[in-house]
């Protein structure tokens, strides 16, 4: 995989600095030796990045898929779910797996703009399509409006459901920029959260839509 300046744009170290937040956790991040994250190439320059087992290995299928604006050519084990492909092959671990059977919504990603449960979608089903994950939301070292509204409202506790919540809410706001509270609740009803009781999550989506809720 290519590693470029683009990648460092999304590292937490630079992100936190850019956001003007405290330096919390930067030392912590440096101590976690995970593999590097997937590159974020400019949309205008479609680069094919090869991932997966060597082409021609037994039981693999070749496919092309665009993830967060980067075109990948991937050798796919047909058993892989989309969540496994994103997490294990592209190291896009922002997409979480909570139940692995389409009940909790933690794995929600957008496929051509529509929310999909990545744990219950085979990777081969998304050939030729455009995938958007939580990693694409922040840009230029800043949280986007929805992320910032979640932060301000206190929508995050353990945070495991949050990527899925953000993706469901992103799809909603794209389709309906000024939703009602009921519409927000309906759009997020497939995303389970065990920490928050949902109040501050709903509050965050409404604030992001420019309709802050007031007591």
């Amino acid at each position, binding site marked *: 995989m290519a590693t470029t300046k683009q990648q460092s744009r999304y590292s937490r170290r630079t992100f936190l600095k850019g956001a003007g937040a405290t330096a919390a956790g930067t030392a912590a991040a440096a101590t*976690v030796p995970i593999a590097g994250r997937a590159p974020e190439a400019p949309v205008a320059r479609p680069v094919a990045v090869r991932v997966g087992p060597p082409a021609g290995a037994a039981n693999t299928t070749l496919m092309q898929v665009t993830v967060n604006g980067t075109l990948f050519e991937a050798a796919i084990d047909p058993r892989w779910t989309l969540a496994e492909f994103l997490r*294990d092959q592209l190291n896009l*671990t922002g997409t979480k*797996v909570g139940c692995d059977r389409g009940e909790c919504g933690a794995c929600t990603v957008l496929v051509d703009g529509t929310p999909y449960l990545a744990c219950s979608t085979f990777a081969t089903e998304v050939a030729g399509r455009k995938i958007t994950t939580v990693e694409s939301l922040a840009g230029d070292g800043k949280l986007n409006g929805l992320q910032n509204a979640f932060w301000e409202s206190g929508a995050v*506790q353990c945070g495991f459901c949050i990527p899925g919540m953000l993706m469901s809410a992103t799809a909603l706001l794209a389709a309906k920029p000024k939703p009602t509270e009921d519409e927000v609740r309906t759009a997020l009803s497939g995303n389970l959260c*065990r920490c928050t009781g*949902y109040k501050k999550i709903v509050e965050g989506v409404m604030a992001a839509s420019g309709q802050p809720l007031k007591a």
Partner: protein
Amino acid sequence: MGKKFSQARILQMLDDPDFQLLSAEYPDLYADEIEAMNDYVRSITPALPEWVKGAAPKSQQQLKFVGTKVKRIEDPARLTGNGVYASDVQLPGMLYGYIVRSPYAHATITAIDTSAAEALPGVRAVLTYKNAPQTKIGTNPDKFVVNQEAHCAGDEVAAVAAEDPHTAREAAELIKITWQELPGVAADIKAAMAAGAPALIAPNISNYSAGTPVKRGDFDSAYGSASLKYEQTYTTATLQHTPLERHCTVARWEGPDRLVMWASSQYMSSVRSSLASYFGMPRSHVRVLSENVGGGFGSKGGAQRDAYIAAVLAQMTQRPVKVYFDRPGNFRTSVHRYAEIMSLKAGLAGGNTINAYRLDAIGDGGANKGGTSSLPPVQRVYTAGNAFFQETNVITNRGQSGPMRCVGDPQGTWAQEIFIDELAEKAGMNPLDFRLKNIAEVDQDHENRKWNSCGLRDCATKVATAIGWSSKWHKPAGKINGRKAHGIGIALHACGHGSMSLPMTCVVRLDRDGSLDVNNGLTEIGGGQSTAAMIIAAETVGVKLTDASASWNDTGFTPDAGVTAGSRGTISSGSAVRNAALDLKAQLLQIATSGAKPMLNAKPEDCDTGDGYAFVKADPSQKVKLADVANSTGNPVIGRGTHVVPPNTSMSVFSAGATEVEVDLDTGEVTILSYVGANDVGQAINRLGVEQQMEGGIVMGMGMGLWEEMKYEAQHNFPVNWNWENYPIPTTLDTPKWANFQTIIVEPIDAIGPYGAKGVGEPPISPPPPALANAIYNAIGVRIYDAPLSRDKVLAAIKKMK
């Protein structure tokens, strides 16, 4: 009560993370042990100079950061997908583990054949009882990492490590096991107590044991002479925590005696000591990282089976191994909230005063010899001079019991608050007035000592006012519009969590650039514990919040600050943070005022700190940057602190909730129209964090009240619902609208916690279930005694309406 312990035993308790965990979760069962530990630590901890303590702000008005709303430092990583949870860790050469579980509630393996699994390409290790290390893992009853005999459905009996998760799972299915089923009990927990019941975990262990009763006055004679008597039995179900991230550990050996683990745990220091002990290594040779944890709620207290299995498979293969439970595994084998059967009895004197009060409770300890307790709320909320409370623990094959948010107290509050509602009606009083008349505001089991702080009455009156109790309460079944019945209910709660807790240490460091770091050994599991620690430290040392931070994920540099459970983080570890910050401040003022050319020409006690400066109180223009003070030593300045509890302290936390519901008389569906919760938190540290804990706890309580229940079939004692489809937890569609869901923070400043804080994580969960039960009664005029208030029970109750 009043047990004494040798110094050796006290030191052993202090050194045992498993015991720290137990005593944090069950403070009422271990009250004597906690007091002994606190007494000992107080006796050996050097006192801070009085002048430093005196320099602390005395009133809330003087506080700069404590009590404000602070955006959490934990969140940006979680919002961008950059935060790493144990289940996200990817290491070069990492293998994937998969666990084979018992299909029976109680059974033993008579033959096992692993040859086909071992022959599958990509399989690197197969672990069964035949090749497992013969070291016990500290469960009760004693078990190995995998076992031949299973004591609950889902018990771990084998594990596979393979190059990819699909191969691991395929190999697990190729292991051929011949089972002999043994007699078990799960569907009906009382069957375990019947004469002739089979021994369920070991022949030499009785299936049940009665706890020491709590007694006051003379219950029997007071009950005998009561003007009004009533008794009723209430039950609650077995529940699952269902954190979004299942149990997960990644283990990597970095040499024959160096182990690194990424653990989804509520207590990384306990994982470290348990695994060090298991492998016979010094604790310093095990490093545990828990940077982000996808929820716990009590289920991830110490080293669970995922940690042991990952470490053993990694040792067998000499490769890193990830073990991530699947969701059915998580439902079946991690600990459960125990079911309770609670019989209450009360005698009123003078028509409306509780004089005699008795609870006989049976708690399902499950497939371990663990303790259960539902007594604290029943001991604390209402005055009863003549009382008898006793809990009996039963062993069954339902799976391990254990702590889940507020442990046994929601069960006790479920029984008590429906019972009190019934008593109020029998006494001819409004349920709110009857409660306020009988409320207790002293520690009745310690000579009616005053609570260190008590906001119970405030909580009750504030929720009643906010929901409009006086205008909305009506006679049972008194407000039916067509086929919709309106009801309103209230419930109060007190418990031992978030109050008295164990001594713990902390390190706070001022770097040479004047920035402040808390090396917080408390595992952050979603409650914003690190932000709270940062706020306390910045407030105390006197630096800007933007110059402060906290580091929390790594046993490599943080001291053991105890488990994130029992609502103890803010008070116990938070106290240690404050004391460490005071120690740091004292050092800084000493440095600034000493030496050949002191930076400040004054005595340390005449100086103070604020906004990153040390200054002379009488002349604040005489000031020096804290960065210059630290830099003058050539080193960071490090403060250490320990949480010390004064002797003979009575602490408790209190909460209340009120709710309005609408019951559909055709479908039995219950809609929660509104909910108001109030919590006595002493002093909010991060107001945003307190609201988060209250909202989350209340909604989890709504789940316990209306929907959640593990169900067991009668023939094989097998749990039949092990996913969210069949074990529904609340969704966005089940909770009240934003404007109708209110939290009220009650702050009767407590003398012991940092800046007067008490804990808040657990108590909000307890009032919702009985408040909903009382509201449903108010709607339809028929009582339901067994939680959850599922639609079938509500429909059956509707059929009984007059």
